[in-house]
């Protein structure tokens, strides 16, 4: 087994730990946009589609490239756009609210 594999494994494990640490601090109220945002991040698989495209040299390769690129692009573009749409709703300017009655009853 190569050094390359070992360093990739180390990166994988450490990234998992960072992921657990960062995600567990996100409040429940933002879990839907967070899940959608994380979903968009795994759209980075489109980088894999690019690598495949540069290696393809047969009709089978082209067809698989097309499929991979279409699926990955839907994932990455749709994911970021829908997450942004949701989060825009959260960051709208507050409407002026009259002071609520504060006295304890």
């Amino acid at each position, binding site marked *: 087994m190569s050094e390359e594999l070992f360093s990739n494994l180390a990166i994988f494990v450490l990234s998992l730990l960072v992921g657990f640490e960062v995600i567990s601090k996100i409040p429940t109220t933002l879990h839907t946009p967070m899940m959608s945002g994380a979903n968009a991040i795994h*759209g980075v698989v489109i980088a894999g589609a690019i690598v495949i495209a540069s290696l393809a040299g047969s009709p089978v390769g082209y067809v698989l490239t097309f499929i991979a690129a279409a699926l990955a692009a839907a994932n990455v573009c749709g994911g970021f756009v829908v997450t942004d749409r949701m989060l825009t709703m959260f960051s709208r300017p507050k409407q002026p609210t009259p002071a609520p009655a504060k006295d304890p009853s």
Partner: protein
Amino acid sequence: MTTLAFVIGIIYLVAATLFVLGLHQMRAPSTARRGNLTSALGMAIAIVATVVVALLGNGGNLWGWIALILGAAVGAVYGVVRARTVKMTDIPQLVSVFNAVGGGAAAAIAFADFVMHGTTASIALSSSIPLVLDVLIGSVTFSGSLIAAGKLQGVIPGRPITFPGSRIVNVAVVLIAIAAGVLTVIFGHSVLLLLVVLVAALVFGILMVLPIGGADAPVIVSLLNAFTGLAVAMAGFAIDNQALIIAGALVGAAGTILTLQMAAAMNRSVANIILGGFGTGDSPSANIADQDLTGIRTLTADDVALQLAYAQHVLIVPGFGLASAQAQHEVADLAKLLIAHHVDVKYAIHPVAGRMPGHMNVLLAEANVPYDQMLQLDEANAAFDNCDVALVVGANDVCNPMAREKGNPVSGMPILDVDHARAVVVLKRSMSTGYAGIPNPLFTDPKTGMFFADAKQGLTEILTATKEYVTA
């Protein structure tokens, strides 16, 4: 290491850092949007860097690039159109569809990589093992997520679908997939064997999700999201790309945490959900006239309006019924009216209210409810002690006081202490039970009044009646 490889490695590291920072910024609503844009910037950097490497490397051939560009254009248009037009109540389905395509892409990449290596000498174990795992996990996610999306959308019946001997078939399919996977790793060249892995995994994804009830579908979506993360990381191992490994691991962690939290909030174990076949997702709209209403105080819209108009502190408990009736705008209008009338109104939001964690917050945000009016479980439970009227809209199990007792399906489930409020109004279509299938003593509590109506209809009536009191 060549200079180019070093520079590209650094660029991938920058992209990965931006992903982590982006997720970190999702901790607060004020920075969350910037967080998403930060992640998107990381994505753009990773994509440009990969294109540059590919062009500077062997360059590929024209047809490969044409296939890539055409595919990416089709996918991007589909993704953006769906993302811009989806109704906020349908978000869980769309997340599931985007998850499916991500898993499918990972599987397609691994398959393509294998086919291209196939004619050359045997592949090193350090590539072939992740390749096979990628095809396996990616395919399960692809078909499973599409079925889950279908269940959430109502295209596929929400009830658990099983057939005689389904367990045996499941086990057989898994064994075939694993056996073919092991053989692929051992023999190296056989595209046919990998095709068996692909097909068996696709079939297993379908069989795994079909028996799951519609109510549990969000948990499966989250679990499959974690799977996609793993599949993407495996693709990264296979083609030696660190950006894929890091991003995949991050998403794997996110999906795992969400799955566990959701299962805890529903008081079930993940294994129980997968094997369970529990919850239909289609609540029966039973006729109120046929039901035993002894011990139940029913209210009219006018009664509810009177209580609300003369209260000081009101907590609204939105549940699945509100989401499925798409009544988020009506509830927000009612709250706005009361707030203008100097009533203190807040929303008490259970972690699994709506169709996935935090979904209710998105729906309320869509209806322009300010973030600071949404209370999480702990904050809400502190507020119920000082609450004059708790208005429960289409929620049931999440406020069932039986959770505090032992020996029933909701025992130990974290609940909203609605019964601590001075008065409770429950707006619900009927007395039917929630997913847990047990009666809710809150409904027969002397301080509770039931208002039987569809969430949208009922809230509109309450709104009209309340206007009479606050403007008079």
